[in-house]
């Protein structure tokens, strides 16, 4: 090989870069997201009524869209009521509707968001629920 030293040096850098995901995972625990929905508010409800605004599958995939549409409806258009696919009416509010049941932000929201490394900008404006503040104070 001509200039083999330089080419092999370049190839070593190439291999080091493309195998980074593998080498970065060495020694790191294999984790899975495990969001909890066992808050006191939810457990208080009878089993049949433990339902979110929309179906679980819908919420899992579309909650970010729903929340941003709620924000636009409330803040920009002044509409505060949401009628779901069952015809039930909800108050469009992250803190008063969503967080009423899902009061465990760190175990519910953050669990998946941290797992897939998403940083929603909800909390740029909203105040984070108390459970987190307490935790930070304890630390």
């Amino acid at each position, binding site marked *: 090989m*001509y200039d083999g030293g330089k080419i092999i040096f370049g190839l070593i850098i190439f291999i080091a870069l493309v195998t980074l995901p593998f080498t970065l995972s060495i020694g790191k625990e294999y984790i899975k997201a495990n969001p909890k929905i066992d808050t006191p508010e939810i457990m208080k409800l009878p089993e049949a009524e433990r339902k979110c605004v929309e179906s679980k599958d819908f919420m899992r995939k*579309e909650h970010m869209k729903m929340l941003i549409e709620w924000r636009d409806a409330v803040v920009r258009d002044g509409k505060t009521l949401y009628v779901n696919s069952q015809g039930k009416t909800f108050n469009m509010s992250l803190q008063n509707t969503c967080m009423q049941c899902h009061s465990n932000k760190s175990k519910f929201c953050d669990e998946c968001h941290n797992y897939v490394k998403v940083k929603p900008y909800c909390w740029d404006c909203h105040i984070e629920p108390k459970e987190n503040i307490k935790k930070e104070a304890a630390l």
Partner: protein
Amino acid sequence: MGIGLALISVLGLILFAYLGTAVIGLNALFAVVFPYAAFIIFVLGFIYRMVQWGKSPVPYRIPTTAGQHYSSLWFKQNKIDNPSTAWGVALRMFFEVFTFRSLFRNTKAEILQGRLYVGSSKWLWLGAIAFHYSFLVIFLRHMRFFTPETPWVISIVESLDSFLQVHILGSPILYITNLSILAALLYLLGRRILDPKIKYISLPSDYFPLFLILGIITTGVLMRYFFKVDVTAIKELTLGLVYFKPVVPKGIGSLFYIHLFLVSILFAYFPFSKLMHMGGVFLSPTRNLANNNRMERHVNPWEYPVKHRHYEEYEDEFREKMKKAGIPVEKE
């Protein structure tokens, strides 16, 4: 002809992935086997191609340059475009790799009203650089799926890409690169179709990567803004690949598998295609060799010791015959 073949190939691949997952249900094949196979082909093929290129000798320096070479003191040398030192070469390579400097010099000749005009043409450079940097940012952003704890560099890239915070369609944020790569790709495809001269020299292997990447971008954009997917399940799948503990989570639709399959094809196709310019740019002889022809002696690597025959030896052999024929000889 070329464009049809490439388009049909990519559509066929999409159909294959759709049938394989949605109809036959071979999700494990598309989620585990193909990505691993593609990655191995990519790495080994890449190394093979680079070593093959490394074996080809470059006999002499090729000073196809765009600047004054090192000369008498009163001529100012252009140290980047016509370097005579390793540092100059390093700088020239840096600008070539990161800013596509030689493409920036692209010119275009046109006949307007019977007269020939030659001028600078930057559109190809703009399309190319927009495409490459968008692709790089998108590639880096995806590392959040392939690392257990995303490095902070990746998070910074991601937050810069989404800093507009535009609420569009189904997403609270809009990635700038989603728009720029689509615009750049459509331009790069459009120039091949609309310019008759470029269309004439375009081959299926020119169109295929364009359609393939367009397919990857389209499926990605569809998943982000239109038909949502369960991102947590997808990360379980991708992390499983990284940890060599492959899992095939339920509830991931065909759209994702089409995306993943097209990416696998891109990786596997890479070493056999023009996409190898990713490695090849570093081996460009007109860019990576210092123009020091007049300072150092360069020996042609395929030169071998040539058998010489001196006149004295010749005369020794034929002296008698030469004398008989009356030819003068040096030694009696």
